[in-house]
Structure formats: structure tokens, C-alpha cells
């Protein structure tokens, strides 16, 4: 990268048209002064002399201007070489297995939903308007020779659960709640939402409501927010009397934590324990629970995650995850493509990539079972089966090994029958 940087530095500082322009200016000056001289003298003889004298320098200046271009030429040459070096043997990936060009409206839908979930509402509506007006023509690709595309419509932007307008409104609500939470340290809208969706959240075993209330307790404790005496009207202005934070927190805990006791007794005990250190929390064992600033970010992230799950969508934009995974996978895929082209082989299993793509662990979303005997991934038709000894192989492998009679587990001395094996759900 440094060589490229250096080239651009050079282009910006010296190797540009500014010098040539200066030389052109010089040539103009030469001509102007010669012209002035001639008009002043009003003598044909002298005019010829002036003109003859002009000839040499004028030519030189023009040649000079031409020469000024040389450094640009050279630097651009270096630029081109540096680029070739950087991207040598890295041809742009050909989209060979491009199963996407035949489904432009699906891509457009993914983009529109991505924009919505990123909070780019204006861009999203502009995009939908433009895409509806001029749909992209589907292009046939090897897998799908005759594409059929319904086109992007407002209606296709929804999910099974929500209409497009609902989805948009929901995201707008999410962003306004998040903005209150992050920018104003106002937790109430988030808590309201959590209370409203309590049954759904609890069914999933979500801690969101408690996390929010806990954060509210902490915020009150630290005096970030203030609660006025009547519990209905709450003013969230920073406390003017810093000492009474713990008292307010205590009052809040008494009113709000009751219903959490069965599930979160331990956490609540911890928070109550922290109360006794209210004068010197910083040195107490509770400082992490009470003083960490990361709470806000963490709770905001938890809220986003729960909100998206409730919408039936993943918390991080799928488009972002997929594009990033794609960029990680491309070098490996290209290498294989190159090798296969050189060896003139074709990759036989169309439904599976020819190589394993190493991704960061957080990019694995499903448990994956690969049969240790057949090395195949389990499917609905070929599920993992556990033998009585606790070892697991795929159903097809099991059938082949047992052939209907008792057989030995490939991994331990235990013998069993096919009917003893149990299907696992990963």
C-alpha cells in the first residue's frame, strides 16, 4: 500500500498539470510583452526584430510545457505498475455460479429490508420507488435457464408476520426507542415495549425485561436519572442532589423487582448487596456491576436482538453477514477455481462447495453434523443417529454397517442393533 500512497503523494504534490499551466502563462506573458513592445514602437523594422527575438524563448516555453507532462506520464506508469503488482494473479472473480442475476427482485428486496433495518428510511423509500419503476431485467444463469421474476413491489417487502408498512413502522419504533436509550439514557420506552411483549419474551427465555429494569436501577443508583415522587410522571433529568441516588434506586427496586424474584433472585441479591457500598462503590466488589459504562451498549444490543427476533428477523443484517462472509470466502474459492481450470477438472457435486471455507466461529449459526463414517453432512433424509453407546453416525451409514443385523460400533467395542439407534435433532 505504501508504494501506492507514495505515487498519489507525488501526483498531488508535483506530477500534475499545474506546471504546464504555469508555462502556458509564461508563453502568454511573452506574447503580451512582445505585443506591447510592437504597439509602443510603431516601427515595422523593430517589430520584426521583436518577433525574431520572441521566436526562441516562445518555442522553448512551449517545449517546456510539453516536458512538464513527462513526470505525470512517469508517475502514472508507476501507479499502473503498483496496481498490477498489488492485484497480480488476482483477476476479478467471475461470477460463475451466479445464481443471483436471475432473481433481481429478491436481491432488491434484501437490499430494501437491509436499508430499513439499518435505519436508512429515506434511502429505502427512494430505492423502492426507483426499483418499482424500473425493475432490473432478470438474466438467465446456468442453474436457472429461464428466469421468472415477479418484480419488486411494496408488498414483497414484508415478512410472513408483518406487512411492509408494519415492518417499516416497527423499525422506526425500534430506532426511536434505541435513540432514547443511547442518547438520553432513557430506558422507559424500552421497558414499556418489553412489558408489552412480556409473554413472547418469556416464552423464549429472554432476560430482556429484567436486564432493562436492572439497568434502570443502576442508572438511578448512579444518579444518571431521577425519578420524581409520583411514579406516573417521571422526570429523567440528571439528579441535582447526587447523594440520593441509592435511595431512589432502593425505592425503584421495591416497586419493580418483586415479580422478578423467582427467576433472578441471585442477581437481585447482588444488586441489593451493592446498596451497602453506596458511599464507596468504586472500591467495592460490586464496581463492575454498578459502574461499567458498557451496560448501555450491551443492553441496547440485547434490545435490538430481541426486537428483531420478535419481528422474525436475525439481529444483524443478513446482507452484511453474507457480504462479509463472501469476502472472506472469495480468496479460497478463487484459488480452487484456478486450480480446477488448470487441471481441467470439474467439480462434481453441484450442491456443495468444493472446499471448506474457514469462517470465524460467530459465523456458524447451525449445529452441523458430519458423519464420521461417510463424511457427509446430515440432512432430513439422512439424519444423525445415536447408538446405545452414545456414538453418532448418519442413518445411511448405520444402515450400511448393520445390514439388518447386530453390528459393532465403529468407535467402541459396543454392539447394538439398528433399531436401538435413536434419531437426534441438532
Amino acid at each position, binding site marked *: *500500500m505504501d508504494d*501506492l500512497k507514495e505515487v*498519489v503523494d507525488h*501526483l*498531488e504534490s508535483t506530477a*500534475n498539470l499545474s506546471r504546464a499551466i504555469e508555462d502556458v502563462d509564461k*508563453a*502568454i506573458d511573452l506574447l503580451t510583452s512582445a505585443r506591447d513592445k*510592437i504597439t509602443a*514602437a510603431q516601427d*515595422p523594422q523593430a517589430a*520584426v526584430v521583436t*518577433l*525574431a527575438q520572441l521566436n526562441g524563448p516562445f*518555442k522553448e516555453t512551449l517545449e517546456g*510545457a*510539453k516536458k512538464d*507532462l513527462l513526470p*505525470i*506520464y512517469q508517475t*502514472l506508469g508507476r501507479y499502473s505498475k503498483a*496496481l498490477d503488482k498489488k492485484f497480480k494473479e*488476482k483477476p*476479478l472473480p467471475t*461470477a460463475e455460479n451466479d*445464481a443471483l442475476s436471475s432473481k433481481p427482485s429478491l436481491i432488491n428486496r*434484501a437490499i430494501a429490508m*437491509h436499508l430499513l433495518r439499518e435505519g*436508512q428510511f429515506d434511502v429505502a423509500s427512494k*430505492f423502492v420507488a*426507483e426499483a418499482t419503476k*424500473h425493475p432490473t431485467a432478470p438474466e438467465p444463469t446456468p442453474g*436457472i435457464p429461464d428466469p421468472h421474476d415477479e418484480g419488486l413491489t411494496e408488498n414483497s417487502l414484508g415478512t410472513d408476520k408483518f406487512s411492509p408498512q408494519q415492518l417499516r413502522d416497527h423499525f422506526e419504533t425500534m430506532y426511536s426507542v434505541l435513540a432514547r436509550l443511547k442518547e438520553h439514557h432513557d430506558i422507559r420506552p424500552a421497558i414499556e415495549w418489553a412489558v408489552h411483549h412480556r409473554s413472547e419474551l418469556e416464552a423464549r*427465555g429472554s432476560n430482556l425485561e429484567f436486564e432493562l429494569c*436492572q439497568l434502570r436501577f443502576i442508572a438511578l443508583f448512579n444518579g444518571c436519572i431521577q425519578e420524581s415522587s409520583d411514579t406516573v410522571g417521571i422526570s429523567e433529568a440528571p439528579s441535582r442532589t447526587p447523594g440520593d441516588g441509592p435511595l431512589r434506586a432502593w425505592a425503584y427496586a421495591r416497586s419493580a423487582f418483586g415479580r422478578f424474584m423467582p*427467576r433472578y433472585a441471585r442477581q437481585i441479591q447482588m444488586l441489593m448487596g451493592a446498596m451497602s457500598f453506596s458511599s464507596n462503590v468504586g472500591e467495592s466488589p460490586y464496581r463492575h456491576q454498578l459502574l461499567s459504562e458498557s*451496560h448501555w451498549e*450491551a443492553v441496547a444490543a*440485547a434490545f435490538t436482538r430481541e426486537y428483531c427476533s420478535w419481528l*422474525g*428477523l436475525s439481529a444483524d443484517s443478513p*446482507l452484511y453477514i*453474507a*457480504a462479509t*462472509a*463472501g469476502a472472506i470466502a*472469495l480468496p479460497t474459492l478463487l484459488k480452487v477455481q484456478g486450480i480446477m481450470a488448470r487441471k481441467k477438472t470439474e467439480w462434481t457435486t453441484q*450442491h456443495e462447495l468444493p*472446499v471448506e471455507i474457514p*469462517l*470465524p*466461529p*460467530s459465523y456458524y*449459526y*447451525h*449445529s452441523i453434523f*458430519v458423519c*464420521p463414517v461417510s463424511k457427509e453432512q446430515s440432512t*432430513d433424509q439422512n439424519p444423525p443417529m445415536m447408538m446405545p453407546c452414545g456414538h453418532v453416525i448418519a442413518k445411511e451409514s448405520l444402515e450400511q454397517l448393520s445390514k439388518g443385523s447386530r453390528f459393532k460400533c465403529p468407535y467402541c467395542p459396543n454392539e447394538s442393533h439398528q433399531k436401538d439407534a435413536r434419531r437426534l435433532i*441438532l
Partner: protein
Amino acid sequence: MAKLDSLELNAEAHLLLDQPLLRLPYAQSRQTFKTAQRHLEHAATSLQKDLAAALKTAKTQQQQDPDKLVKDIDAMIAKLRTLKRKLSALHDDEKKYNAASRARISHLSELYSMRTLSDVRFERWSRVRLNRLLVDYLLRNGYNGSALALARSTGIEDLVDLHAFGTAMEIQESLAERHDAGKALAWCKENSQALKKLGGDLELQLRYQQYIEMVMGQKKLLEAMAHAKKYLGGMPEHIYGQAAGLLTFKPWQNLEPYASAYSPARWDHLAHLFLTTHNTLFSLPPRPLLHIALSAGLSALKTPACHSSQPHQSLSHPSSSASPIDRTTVSLCPICSTELNALAENVPQALHTKSIVEDDPRVLPNGRVYGRERLERFNKEVGTEKGWVRDPGGGVDGEKFRESEVRKVFIL
């Protein structure tokens, strides 16, 4: 399960998608330079000729009127001024392209300072890249308004080629919106040299469209025939035949293939054709980079579970619960998510040679498998009675089993 090498970030290899990012400003700088050189050389030669001629006439005609000489010099000065104006304009362009190069190089350099894919800065970088890819996609499809809006709101104007697409945008729009081929034909003339090398029939198609419009008016049939004679000679025979057929078949007769020739959708096709031609000319990849990144990514992430009829649960990542607040619910898989599910249907799935399951897996009597830690944490959180275990897949009201029925399972 977690392979260490999967976390390392190889910046050099990672830049595969970003080639056009630097190639384009380079190509623009080069074009600017070539134009400047042409202007300068042309002017220098003609000026030297002018001066020599002036000198010659001055010498031969001793009694020459100095005023005539002054006029000659003034003409030369005017020429130089024009040259200067042209060069200054090019110099401004040059500055723009250099600034773009600089911004892009520094954007790409950021990647070299990161060691691993889990670096927080990588996530930020990768988001910028996605926005870049999206803008590129939007521009290619001619969705200029949204492209501009996205680039503005994410602050990446220097990293995308709104400018290079600027003229293209206008021409595209004039085709698609105003049904006017004039600008596109002017562009063809400007780049005729390069277009000839490239092949393709953009100009011909544009001329054909003009012909269709004339025929459609039904009043200018003679004019249309003259137009066809002049411009449509190079057409493949069957289209030429079709063009002739248009003279007899009226737009309202609704008969193929003439109906589709009369269709206003043909303008959209032309706008598209223009964009593809333009992109090839500027060595921009034929398909949007977003497609390339997405198809690779969809495959890398796709598992048999994503399009299975069976309900599957997701993996939880205990390692990622860095926050003091425990993370129990897990993020939905992007391929299973509504946005991408149908799109991923036709891409190959990822190859795995090893099972990926949570650590220390346990199986419940209903056949479901969970890591020990997740099982324990969930049951603690939902407050299951002692001696019992609840299936996390069913939430708080999930199936309940005796602890003794939960057994260890060996997944190799």
C-alpha cells in the same frame, strides 16, 4: 471447534473485491492526462506554425502594417488562453481523481492494520464496504437517486464512483425517462474509437429506436425509410426484415414481434444496454460486485438446515457474551432470515468436514442435543425445579425431563 486460522485476516487476499476501487480513478487520471497531452501538443504545433508564419510575412513585407502583426499576436494569445482554460479544467478533474485515489488507498490501508477478523475495526470497515457495494449495485441498475442518498448518508462519497457514473446517469435517465436517444448517440460519437474496438450494437439499437419512433408516429414514414437507409445498414438481416415489417404492422395490431418493438419497455432495455456498454468501456466488472460477494457468502453460510422442513435450533456462542449480562437467546441465521432465504435456494451449500456442535453435548429424551453449559444456564435462568431439565428449544414452557434421563452424546 473454533479454528484459530479462521480468525486471521489476510488483507492482501481480502482486497480481491476492491480492485475496481483503485483501477477506476487511475483510468480517469490517465484519460485526463491523455486529453491534456493532446490539447497541449495540438496547441504547441499550431502556435509555432503561427509564429513562424507571422515572422515570415513580417520579414518579406518590410512595409507591413504593425497592426496586422498585433492582430496575429492577439489571435495567438487567444489560442493560449483557450489552452489554459482547458488545462485548468483538466487540472481540477485531476485533483478530484487524486483525492479519490488518496481516500481509497487510505480506506484500503486500514485493513492492513488489523490482525484478526474479530477486530472491532474490521466490522466497521466491512460495513463501509457493504455500503460501497450497495452504491455500486444501485448505480449499475440506474437507481441513481437512492445511490446518491445512501452515499451521502453514510459519508462515503469519495469511495464510490458517483462522478464517473454522473454522465452515464444522465444519459441513462434520458433514455429511460424521457425516451430521448440524443444524448446517448452523442456519447457514442465521443467514444466511437473505443466503442468500435469493443464491438456491440448500442449505436445501432439507438438508431433503430429512432426509426421505430418515426414509424410509430405514422406520419413520418418516408423520413423513417430514409433514416433506415442511412443508419440501419449494418443490422442483422432478420431485424432489418422486422424493421421493414414495422411499416405495415401498426402499433395497435398487437402482433409479435412488432408489438415488442413498439413497446415502451424497449427504452428500458436501451438504458440497460447503454449502462452495460459504459461499464465495459471503463473496465468495470460486468456483474455487480455485490452479486459476487453475495453468492460466495450465501454458499459459505448455507447449511442443510437452512432449507429444511424440520425445525432446527441455532448454535449459541458463549464466547461472545462478553457483556456482564448473559446472553441466552441466539441470533437467527442470516440464510434462514426472510431476506435471504429464497435467494440462497439455488446456491451450493458450504462443505464441512467436521461436525460443529456446542461443547460437551448432551441429548434429551426427545432427541434434541445441547451443550452442557447452555443447558445448565438456561435451566438456571428459567428456574427449573431441582432434579429436572427443561428443553431450551421450547422456552419457559418447554418439555421437562428428569435429570437422570439426560445423557452424554459423542459426536466425533
